[in-house]
C-alpha cells in the first residue's frame, strides 16, 4: 500500500509539472486522480492547482531556457582557454637610465615628463640579515631614527617641511633591503632629494630621541604580533634558517630594542650605508641629468667602503634546515600554517619558473569572487570542499636562498584535509603538469608584474629593488621572454630540483592539534607510484 501511494504521488507530481507547463492545471490534476484510481486520504477540499515546487521548477527552467540561445555578439573575443599572446608592440617604456658616480653610488631614473608628480628614493643593500647577533634590530632602529632630526633640521621641522609641500616621506626595512623614499610634486624634487641626503648623512641620533623611539618600536612590535600572517612568516624564517642571520625577525628582540646604543646605530650606518651599496632612484617628472647632478653634490659624504653584500653573504651564508615550529593556542578561532621548501636565490634562472609555479598554485580567500571556478586545482579543492578560509602560495627570494611554499588559514577541523590538498598539489608539480595551466599561470604572472607598475612609486620601487638584486633593471620584454620560456617540462624539472623529496620547514599557530606531524608532510613531498 505504501508503495502504491508513493507511486501515485510520483505520477501526480510528474503530470502536474507537465500540466503546469501546458498551462492547464485543473484538468490534468483531475485526470491524475481518475487515472491512478487511488483515493488519497489527505485530500483537502481545495487543492492548489499547481504546487509550490512546480512553480519554482518552472521559474528555474524559464531562467535556464534563456541560456539556450546565447547572443553571438558577446562571444566574439574572449576565450577561456589560455593562449600565448605577443605583447611586444605595447611594451614600449621610457628608458631606464643608470649612471654610476665616482664614489660608487648609482643613480637610476625613468622619466615621464608629462606627469606632475614624482617619487625619489634611496634603496640600500642593507637589512636585518647583515646585523650582528648582539645588535639584532638595529637596521630597523636606524630606519626610525633617521626621521628624528639632523644637524640642519629637527624632527618637527622635517615633518613640517614635508607636510607643507604636501609630500609623503616613508621608509621600510626588510631582511635584505632598506628604503627611504619621498613622493612629491614635480617642483619639489630637488628639495626631497636634499632631505633624503640630509637624513642619510647628517642624522644626529640624539640620546633622548633614541630613548623615546624604543617605546615606539616596542609598540610597533605589539602591532606586528597582532598580525598573524607576519608572525607566521617570522617563525617560518626562524625555523627554516635557524642559526643564521636570515632567521632573525626584522624588528629584533624586545631585549635588544631596549639595549641598543647610539654606538650600535652609528656603527651600522657607517658599515652598511655605503655609496656602492646604494641606489638613488627617481621616476615621474624628473630629468636624469638633473638628478645625477644633484646626487653628486648632495651625497658626497657617504663612506666608500667597497665591501659588497655578496662578500658578507659568503661569510655568513643562510642555510635551510628542515624543521618545524608549532605554537598551540586553542583559544584562537582559526589555525594557520605555512609549509615551505628551500627556494631559489634572486639571480637563479629557475627563480622565474618558481614564480610561475607560485602563480599556478594561486591564492584565494573566502570572499573572492571566482573561488570554485579558478584555474588552480589547489584553490578549487579548498573552495569546493570548504576546507580553508584563505590560501596563498608564496615565493620569497634572498641573495643566496629563498622560500617557496603555501600559507593557509583554516578552521581546526579541516586541517588534515587541507594539509593533504596542499601537499598533493605541490608534489604534483613534479609529476603531472598541463601546458594549459602553465600558460595561464604565465599570463597571470606577466599581467601582475605589469599591472602593478601603476604610478611613479611602484616604478621607483621596481628600479631600486632590481638594481640591488640583479645589478640592472631587467627590461620587461626580456622578463616576459624568460617567463614564456617556462613550459610544462621546465616546471617539472624545477619541481624536481626544489620540491621532490626535499626537506621542508613548517610554522603553525593556533588550534593546530589536528595538523599532521612533520614526517607526514615530509613523506608527501613525493608520491609513490609503481
Amino acid at each position, binding site marked *: 500500500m505504501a508503495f502504491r501511494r508513493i507511486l501515485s504521488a510520483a505520477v501526480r507530481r510528474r503530470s502536474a509539472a507537465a500540466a503546469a507547463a501546458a498551462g492547464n492545471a485543473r484538468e490534468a490534476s483531475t485526470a491524475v486522480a481518475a487515472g491512478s484510481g487511488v483515493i488519497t486520504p489527505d485530500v483537502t477540499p481545495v487543492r492548489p492547482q499547481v504546487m509550490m515546487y512546480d512553480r519554482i521548477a518552472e521559474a*528555474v527552467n524559464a*531562467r535556464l531556457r*534563456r*541560456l539556450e540561445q*546565447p*547572443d553571438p*555578439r*558577446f562571444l566574439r*573575443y*574572449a576565450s*577561456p*582557454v*589560455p*593562449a600565448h*599572446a*605577443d*605583447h*611586444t*608592440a*605595447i611594451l*614600449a*617604456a*621610457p*628608458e631606464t637610465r643608470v649612471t654610476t658616480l665616482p664614489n660608487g653610488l648609482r643613480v637610476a631614473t625613468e622619466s615621464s615628463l*608629462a*606627469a606632475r*608628480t614624482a617619487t625619489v628614493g634611496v634603496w640600500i643593500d642593507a637589512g636585518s640579515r647583515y646585523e650582528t647577533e648582539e645588535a639584532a634590530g638595529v637596521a630597523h632602529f636606524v630606519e626610525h631614527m633617521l*626621521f628624528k632630526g639632523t644637524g640642519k633640521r629637527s624632527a618637527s621641522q*622635517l*615633518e*613640517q*617641511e*614635508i*607636510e607643507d609641500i*604636501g*609630500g*609623503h616621506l*616613508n621608509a621600510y626595512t626588510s631582511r635584505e633591503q632598506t628604503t627611504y623614499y619621498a*613622493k612629491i610634486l614635480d617642483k619639489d624634487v630637488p628639495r626631497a632629494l636634499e632631505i633624503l641626503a640630509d637624513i642619510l648623512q647628517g642624522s644626529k641620533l640624539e640620546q633622548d630621541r633614541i630613548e623615546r623611539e624604543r617605546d615606539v618600536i616596542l609598540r610597533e612590535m605589539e602591532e606586528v604580533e597582532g598580525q598573524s600572517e607576519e608572525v607566521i612568516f617570522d617563525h617560518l624564517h626562524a625555523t627554516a634558517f635557524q642559526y643564521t642571520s636570515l632567521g632573525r625577525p626584522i624588528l629584533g628582540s624586545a631585549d635588544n630594542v631596549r639595549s641598543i646604543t647610539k654606538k650600535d646605530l652609528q656603527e651600522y650606518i657607517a658599515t652598511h650605508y655605503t655609496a656602492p651599496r646604494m641606489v638613488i632612484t627617481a621616476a*615621474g617628472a624628473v630629468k636624469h641629468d638633473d638628478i645625477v647632478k644633484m646626487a653628486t653634490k648632495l651625497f658626497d659624504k657617504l663612506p666608500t667602503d667597497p665591501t659588497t653584500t655578496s662578500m658578507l653573504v659568503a661569510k655568513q651564508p643562510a642555510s635551510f634546515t628542515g624543521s618545524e615550529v608549532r605554537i598551540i593556542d586553542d583559544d584562537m578561532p582559526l589555525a594557520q600554517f605555512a609549509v615551505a621548501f628551500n627556494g631559489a636565490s634572486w*639571480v637563479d*634562472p629557475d627563480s622565474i619558473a618558481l614564480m610561475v609555479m607560485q602563480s599556478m598554485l594561486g591564492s584565494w580567500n573566502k570572499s573572492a569572487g*571566482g573561488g570554485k571556478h579558478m584555474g588552480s586545482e589547489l584553490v578549487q579543492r579548498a573552495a569546493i570542499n570548504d576546507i580553508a578560509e584563505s590560501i596563498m602560495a608564496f615565493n620569497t627570494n634572498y641573495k643566496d636562498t629563498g622560500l617557496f611554499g603555501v600559507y593557509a588559514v583554516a578552521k581546526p577541523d579541516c586541517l588534515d584535509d587541507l594539509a593533504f590538498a596542499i601537499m598533493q598539489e605541490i608534489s604534483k608539480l613534479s609529476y603531472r603538469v598541463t601546458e594549459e595551466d602553465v600558460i595561464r599561470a604565465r*599570463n597571470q604572472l*606577466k*599581467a601582475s608584474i*605589469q599591472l602593478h*607598475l*601603476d*604610478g611613479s612609486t611602484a616604478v621607483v620601487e621596481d628600479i631600486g629593488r632590481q638594481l640591488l638584486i640583479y645589478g640592472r633593471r631587467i*627590461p620587461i*620584454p626580456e622578463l616576459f*621572454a*624568460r617567463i*614564456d620560456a617556462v*613550459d610544462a*617540462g621546465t616546471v617539472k*624539472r624545477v619541481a*624536481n630540483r626544489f620540491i621532490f623529496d626535499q626537506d621542508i620547514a613548517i610554522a603553525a599557530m593556533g588550534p593546530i592539534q589536528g595538523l599532521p606531524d612533520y614526517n607526514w608532510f615530509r613523506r608527501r613531498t613525493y608520491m609513490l607510484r*609503481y
Partner: protein
Amino acid sequence: MYRIVGSHLHSLKRHGSSRFASTSVVKQSSGGLFGWLLGGKSSQLPPLNVPLPGITFPPPLPDFVEPSKTKVTTLPNGIKIASETSASPASSVGLYIDCGSIYETPASSGASHLLERMAFKSTTNRSHLRLVREVESIGGNVSASASREQMCYTYDAFKTYVPEMIEVLIDSVRNPAFFDWEVKEQLQKINAEIAEVSDNPQGLLLEALHSAGYSGALAKPLMAPQSAIHRLDSSILEEFIAENYTAPRMVLAASGVEHDELVSIAEPLLSDLPTVKRSEEPKSVYVGGDYRCQADSDKTHVALAFEVPGGWYEEKTAIIVTVLQMLMGGGGSFSAGGPGKGMHSRLYLRILNNYHQIKSFSAFNSIYNHSGLFGIHATTIPNFASKAVDLAAAELLEVATPGQVTQEQLDRAKQVTKSAVLMNLESRVVASEDIGRQILTYGERKPIEHFLKDLEAITLNDISSTAKKIISSPLTMASWGDVIHVPSYESVSQKFFSK
C-alpha cells in the same frame, strides 16, 4: 624503497625531457626566440643578472608623452563612451551606472549590495566558470563596487586584450543570469558580512549617520539589512536592473584605450539598450538625528556630522569641504607611515598630541550629488567619551570662527589637497574611475586645471563661512561600543546653537 622511487624519477625525468624536446619543436615554428631559448636544456638560461641575448625590444618611449584629452561619444540611445589614451602597456575599462542604494524601494532594499556581490557571475551568454577562466587566461582583474549613488564595474588588463575586456565587462553588467543558487550563495556571504560588521565600527557609524541624519533616499542602508537576506531573490534583482540600468544612466569609461577602438567594439554591444527616460532622482531631506548602540567593546566610537549643502553640484563648496577635511585632518594615535600622513593637521596637533586617551580622531566627508555629510569621527576609551565629544564640537566651532585658522594652515591644506589629487591621478585605475564618475555627475570630464584653479582661489574667509554654514544645519550624532558616557544629543546640539 627509496631507490625505487629514485629510479622512477629518473625515468620520469627522461620522459619529461623527451616531451620537452617535442614541445620545443612545436614552439620553434611559432617563434625563433623560443627555439633558441629551449634548444636543449632550458636550465642553461643565463642567470638573471646577465642580459638574455636575442630579445626584440620595442623602441623606447620618449620622456615626454603628450597627455591625451578625454574623448566622449554619446550613442543615440544616450549611453556615453569616454576614454583617454596612455603610454602604459595596461588599460583599465569601467562601466559606471547612475544607480545605487538611493534607488531602492522597501522591497528591493539591499539590492545594490547584492548586485555588487553578484557582479561577474553567470550571464545568459557565459557561465561563471567560463567568465572566471576568461579573466584568468589573460591575467586580468575584475572588481565591482556599489555606493549610494553610483555602481561601478571595472576590468584591468594588458592593452592587447581590450576587445576581450569590453566584451566580458558589458556582458556581465547587461545580461546577468541571476541563478537562484548563485544568489543564495552570495546572500549567505552577505549574512556573514553582517555578522562581522563590528570589525568595522567606522563604517558602521557612517551607515548610522546616514540613516539618522537623512529622511528619504540617502537614509536607505547601503549595507543590506538582515531582513534582506530572506527577502531578496533573483526576480527582485532583475526588476531593479531593468528599471535602473538604462542607457542614459550609463557611462563606459576607459584609460589607456584608443577612443575609436573602444567605440567600434562597444557600440554594437550597447546600442540596443533601451532608452528609458530617466525617472526623477529620489529626494532626500537632511533632518539630523541621533543613533547610539551599546555593544560589547572596550572602546567608544562616536561621530558628529552636519550637512554639506548642495553636494557635488555645488562644486565650489565641495572643493572647500575637501580642503577643510585636509585642514582638520587627524588620524590614529598609532599609525604606520612617515611625515606626510597629516601630522601637522589641526586635529593631529591639537587633539592627538595632547590626549593619549583618544585612539583616533579624524575629520571625514561623504559627498553626494545634492547633499553631503561632514564631521569628526573619534575613538576613545569609554570614560573619556564625553570629553572627546566636547573636543570634537569645539574643533568644529573653531574652524567656523573667523581668525582661528591661520593662512599657513590653509596653505598647507591646499597643498596637501593638490598633491593628493595629482598623485592619485598617476594611476590608470584611478584615472578611469575619475572619467566615469565625473561624466556621471557632471556630464563631462572637467580638466584638472579647472579644479586646481578653484582650489587656489580658496581663502580663509571661504573656510570659515563654509564651516559656519555646515554647522548651522542640525546635528547628527552616532555612537557605538561602550556608549554610557556619550553625552545626550540635546547637550551637544546646544553647543552649536548657542553661538
